[in-house]
Each structure stands twice: as structure tokens, then as C-alpha cells.
């Protein structure tokens, strides 16, 4: 997947776990939690969705990498580079 495709996947996950939020103007470099209601259980939903969709195991010590969209895409790029969209 490309970085744009990964971003789109993350956006779709966020839309599912925060269905009341308008994510149109999401700033990729600002922390998610500054832009939307996202508590620790929601954050675990992101991790769980990635696990279900791509069988990625994200260790807890890596969670800080997922604080922003840019950080998340950057973290996932090497792990999803060989994965097809929708896999």
C-alpha cells in the first residue's frame, strides 16, 4: 500500500470508531486527541482494527507512534508496503 492508501484506511477506521466526528479537516501532524474525542478504548479500537484487517501486532511500546495521522502512516508504511489494498 502507498502512504495515501494507508491514510485512507486509517481515516475509514476513525470514521467507524468516532462516527459523530467530522474528519474532513483532520490535520495529519496534530495529535488525534486534540482534534476529536478519542479515549484509550477508542485508541485500542484502532489497534484492534489493524490487527483484524492486516494481522499486524502493534506492541504497546509503539503506541506513541500512532498519536497522529502522519506518525501512524509513517509507522505502518514498512509493515504494509507489501499488502494490497483491501487485503
Amino acid at each position, binding site marked *: 500500500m502507498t502512504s495515501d492508501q494507508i491514510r485512507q484506511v486509517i481515516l475509514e477506521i476513525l470514521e467507524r470508531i468516532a462516527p*459523530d466526528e467530522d474528519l474532513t479537516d483532520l490535520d495529519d501532524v496534530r495529535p488525534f486527541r486534540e482534534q476529536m474525542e478519542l479515549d484509550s*478504548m477508542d485508541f485500542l479500537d484502532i489497534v484492534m482494527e489493524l*490487527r*483484524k484487517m492486516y494481522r499486524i501486532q502493534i506492541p504497546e511500546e509503539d503506541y506513541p507512534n500512532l498519536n497522529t495521522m502522519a506518525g501512524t502512516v509513517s509507522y505502518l508504511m514498512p509493515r504494509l508496503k507489501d499488502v494490497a489494498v483491501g487485503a
Partner: protein
Amino acid sequence: MSDQDRIVITGIGLTSPNGNSLAEFRQNLLNGKSGVVDYETRYMGPVLAGVCNFDELRYQKKKDLRRGTRAGSIAVYCANEAVRDSGLDWPNVARDRVGVYIGITEHGNVETENEIYEISKFQYDTKVWSHHHNPRTVANNAAGEVTLNMGITGPHLTLGAACAAGNAGFIQAAQMLRLDEVDIAVAGGVSESIHTFGIFASFAAQGALATHEDPTKACRPFDMNRNGIVVAEGGGICTVERLPHALARGAKIYAEIIGYAMNSDARDFVLPDANRQAECMQLAMKRAKINVDQIDIVSSHATATEQGDIEEASALRRIFADSKAVINNTKSFIGHAMGAAGALEMLGNLPSFDDGIAHATINLDDLDPRCALPNLVINQPRELGNVNCILNNSFGMLGINSVVIVRKYVG
């Protein structure tokens, strides 16, 4: 009894398969309108169920619905509706003096089944088991979700009491108010049971799951052709207060809870016991300091199972054979709303205090002689004139019985 010990119902919120407010529910009970429909459940295929269609987003966000449970959502809707109906100045109510007491038949099955189904798609890898499972399945979930939604910091309990649970919620409220533990109770019962296939499958395995080509005719208490339970979801929740508290704020008073009782059969996991049911009703009347002649309407539990109806009819005959009380039933309209059943059954009868009418039990075309009852209100509502007292009878598995008696409040 001092006025401080007198307990009154001041607000009502409900969702039933045939109505999402007391007015709509009552009208459909008087009109004989069923809420039972065809329903698909996982693994079992088509069944019949009482399904609610309330506005889930009236008091919750989409995210709240995703995070919580159906039982929680029903409870949140009904509790908010009750508070709104009560006229309480909610922003200025001391929330640490509000208690939430909600009866439920079972809880956790829906979420557990959903999670097992989900991990089955991942070769049963428990690493995809949801972190939401525990907060969704803790036994206090329904009442706890109400406190989260409404900012209530007083005590909350979800009371597991099988199908006697709706009454149990009201009883707990009355007791906590009399103990001065709270000033306002948000109390009643809820059911999310149609979302678990297990409850349908288990009743089917018992030979106690109703079938009928016409869903609206499927629930047939006391009828020769009854063939079991129609599972339903729903909720009935009230604001309950001590009389002086309600009077001080000029509240509308729907009814006074004058008596209640709970007891146990100590006999069988499933089968009810007419002896203990009769004792429970008698104890409630004794506590209410009334005799049988003062009861105008008996709201029967009547699940439309073979033995359940026979046992209850036996208990009711023992007490009401020579009385003026008429006997009706709500499950024939909506199915068995489990934890909500007792609450909905009582609430649907409360308007009788104003209109003097007893709604019927419907789908009773061929009375089972073993269920013959005095003054059974069959298929058509009955004008009674003045209604002062209603006895609401409930019972459930493991031999749990509950009775609540309410009286018209006359200031």
C-alpha cells in the same frame, strides 16, 4: 405509615414493541395492536420477536451506541424519557441523591455471542477479542450506562431477577427511598434478549418457543393453542420519589406503590409454583394493608407456556376467585420482554386510574379450562369505571416471584 414512607411514581419512560411512549403503548393495548413481528436471529433463521423501534439517537451519540450495549441504550432512552416526563429540574437535581435500579433477566449473552462469532472469522484467535467485552458484559451495565449518560453519581444496580426483574427494580427503588439512601430513584426493567440467539434456541430446546404463521397471533396466554414464548426487547423506567419530595415540587403523580413482595419457590430451575406465587401476592397485599376486594385489576405474568399459565391461573384463582378484580395480560400484545416485562405490564395499566378501562389479553380464542379465571378480560377492553388498585404479578426461572401493588393517588 408516615408520608416519608409513601412512595410515588412521578415520571414514565418506556419503549415497547408496540409503542415508544406511555400514550402510544396504552393506545395500542386498548386497540389490540400487537408488536410481534418476523425476526431473523443468528444461526436459527426466522423466529418471531417483539422488536422496539425507538429513537436511539435522541439521548446518545452514535459513538455511545457503538461503545455500549442494547440494554444500555434502551435504559438510557427510557431513563431520560422518564426524567423529562417527571418535570424534575434536572440540571439542578443533586445527582448524588439519585439512585438507578434496573431489573434485567440476563445480560452478557449478546456481547459474548457477538465476540465468539467475530473471533470465529479469525480461527478463534483470542487476540481479536474486543477490549469492550468486559465493560459491556458486567452485570451492572444497563444501570451503569444510565449513570454515565445522565451524570448520576448516586448508587446504581442492575438487578438480575429473571422475568420477575421489572417489579424488582421498583421494589429496590421503594426500599432505598424508604431508607433515605436516595431522594429520587430511576427504576424499572429492561431487556435486550432478542439479540442473543441463545435465548431463542434454549426456549426452542425446551419446546417453549412460540410459532405461528401470523406473528401477531403467536403469543396466546391461557389459550388452548398456545405453544410458548415470544421473546421481546423493551424497557420501562420510572422516576420514583417519596411523597413529600414529589408534592414539594408539584409533581404529577401517576401512582403510589403501596405494597410489594418477593419470594422464592425453592423447588425447580424452570417450573413455576402456584403456592409460592399465591403467597407472594398475599404478602404484598398484607404489606399494602389492603384486602383482595380492593384490587381492581390483576396484571398477570402469563408467558403462554403450557405449565406457566396453568400454575399462575391456579394461584390467581386461589386468591381472586370471588373478588371483583379483573385479570388481564400484556405479553399477548408484545411477547415476553423479560427484564422489562413486569415494568411494562404495570405501566401499561396505570392509565386505568384515569380512564377506568382495563385493557384485554388478546389472542384468547379457545380458553384452556385449566387456565379458567374469574373476570378475565378477553380480547376486548373492559370499562370498569373507577380503578383504584392494580396488582402486578411476575415470576421467573429459578423460582423467583415478585409482586407490586399500586394505588391511584388522590391528593
